């Protein structure tokens, strides 16, 4: 019988960061952009612009393009300005990081939380509970969630907070993948002697879950969470890109990239800054997650 977790989680994280330079670089990217998201207000105060104020003086009056070269990049506007509105692109990208992290992390919390609870219930309780959950997971995995989310954007009333809607919807559709993995882990764990002992001593399923199962699930849960954040951030960006995500004027990388479509030939800087930010975050979480998986899952050792 193999243990699902090779070693303790903090030790694994430390060894990953010490040995795997890609995972370290990914962590640096995630931490830097995370700090940018937290201190968005401070950063924009230093630069001196907010993401909402229109400024026609930063534009070329002839065609609405940013005045100056490369999208109007200058000491005044670090990333240049948005065409047609003159809003500061640095402020938009920095505050967009906040939107991305908020929705990405909160949705991951929802989906991993649901997935762990549901998966553990299926694995530990077994019987009809297991059958119903496994079947529902199959239905969910067959659900055209992206199309459904796009369509949902049209019917949900405009006064419902969009960020909350996105967190709920993106998080809710994510549980089956987590639940499957947790279920299989719990199926192995529940045959181990320490779980059997707890059960024999009369521990309720909830007690067994909290004191015996959960501590042994942290490793896989951490890997799943890290690897699912970029997907969730990407989904928010994709929905905003399609105009059914975060509503204006709240900054969102996806919406900026979408707006950049019409300007890509004449103002590529407008595409590059939000695009690079989105890429950096996605790559950072993926690199960190891959490294963690290699360290915590002894089976996936052959990578590089």
């Amino acid at each position, binding site marked *: 019988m193999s243990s699902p977790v090779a070693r303790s989680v903090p030790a694994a994280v430390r060894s990953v960061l010490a040995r795997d330079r890609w995972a370290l670089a990914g962590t640096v990217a995630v931490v830097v952009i995370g700090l940018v998201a937290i201190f968005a207000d401070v950063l924009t105060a230093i630069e001196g612009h907010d993401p909402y104020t229109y400024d026609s003086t930063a534009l070329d009056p002839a065609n609405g393009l940013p005045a100056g070269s490369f999208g109007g990049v200058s000491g005044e506007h670090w990333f240049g300005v948005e065409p047609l509105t003159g809003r500061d692109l640095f402020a938009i990208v920095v505050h967009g990081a906040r939107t991305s992290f908020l929705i990405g992390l909160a949705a991951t919390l929802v989906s991993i939380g649901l997935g762990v609870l549901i998966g553990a219930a299926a694995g530990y309780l077994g019987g009809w509970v297991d059958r119903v959950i496994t079947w529902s997971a199959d239905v969910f995995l*067959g659900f055209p969630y992206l199309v459904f989310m796009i*369509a949902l954007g049209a019917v949900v009333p405009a006064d419902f907070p969009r960020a909350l809607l996105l967190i709920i919807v993106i998080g809710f559709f994510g549980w089956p993948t987590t639940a499957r993995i947790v279920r299989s882990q719990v199926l192995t764990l529940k045959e181990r002697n320490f779980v059997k002992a707890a059960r024999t001593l009369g521990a309720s399923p909830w007690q067994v879950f909290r004191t015996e199962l959960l501590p042994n699930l942290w490793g896989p849960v951490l890997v799943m969470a890290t690897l699912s954040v970029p997907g969730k951030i990407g989904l928010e960006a994709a929905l905003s890109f399609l105009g059914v995500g975060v509503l204006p004027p709240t900054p969102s990388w996806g919406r900026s990239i979408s707006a950049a479509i019409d300007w890509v030939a004449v103002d590529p800087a407008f595409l590059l800054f939000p695009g690079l930010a989105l*890429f950096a975050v996605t790559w950072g979480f*993926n690199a960190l997650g891959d490294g963690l998986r290699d360290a915590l899952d002894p089976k996936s050792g*052959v990578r590089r």
Partner: protein
Amino acid sequence: MRTLRFAAARLGGTVLVLLVVAFCTYIVFYLVPSDPALMACGKPCTPENLALAREFMGFDEPWWQQFLTFLGGIFTGRTFGTGPTAIHCTAPCFGYSFQQNADVLELIGGRLPVTVSLAVGAAVLWVVLGVAVGVYAALHKGSWFDRAAVAGSVIGVSAPVYLVGLLGILVLGFQLDVVPVGNYTELSEDPVRWAWGLVLPWFVLAFAHGAFYVKLTRTQMLETMSEDFIRTARAKGVPERTVVGKHALRNVLLPVVTLTGIELGSLLGGAVITERVFSLPGLGGLLIDAVHSRDLPTLLGCTLFAGFLVVVANAVVDLSYGLLDPRARLT
């Protein structure tokens, strides 16, 4: 007999899944405060006109009755209204868009060729290229090709498809001017121009999706090549070409088939994004337009159709396991 029973159970499960998808979609779209009759009734909208519009569209019935009528329409067709103004929607009727005055299934059918052209062409590219690059990289582990493949796949996995697409348009379309941007020609009209117009979208999609196939194939191949049966085959004197092509590749292809099925099943969702980037007039455009005009019947039809694609793709994947892996044969 067992095969038949398995197939029947699979089919039953598939229908059940579709029913659940239809039911959930229906409930969400029709219980949210948004009245299609109000939008169709025109201005000025008197209460009488509104009631008339509701009756015409079938919204005067309780919601469960509406759902049953909708399901019935799939098998028997539906007629909206009576007399000379009646609109008939022939079976299988997946709804009628009162805004576009068209059968939803016809709307979907009209857009489908574009989306299928885009998705199938790209899928062929990404599977073939992804597997080929992955296998070659694994067989030459540590070479410059391997390192480039790993680096490329890392970029491809993390870069959203619309970003790659826009960069492709910017660099290849506008700066270098080697490929056309944003004109779609029907296949039946001119196959060469059809393919040429889709070259950029195909390669962009193939890069974004193929990256993961490279990663998957490479890891899988490395694992398989270190297995005992490979050593046995080599010890028996089986030529290396057969060891790789027959013994190893079979093991590698199983997860690839699963992934391809899942991705093709969810192609409609992805198509929405790709089509927006390359301004292709496919299903994605239909869906997005329906969202903006709040065309509920079209939304419902598209969601159901997307669910249908996913479910069918999953069934095909399950069946193809039997072909690739004798252990998974249904009998």
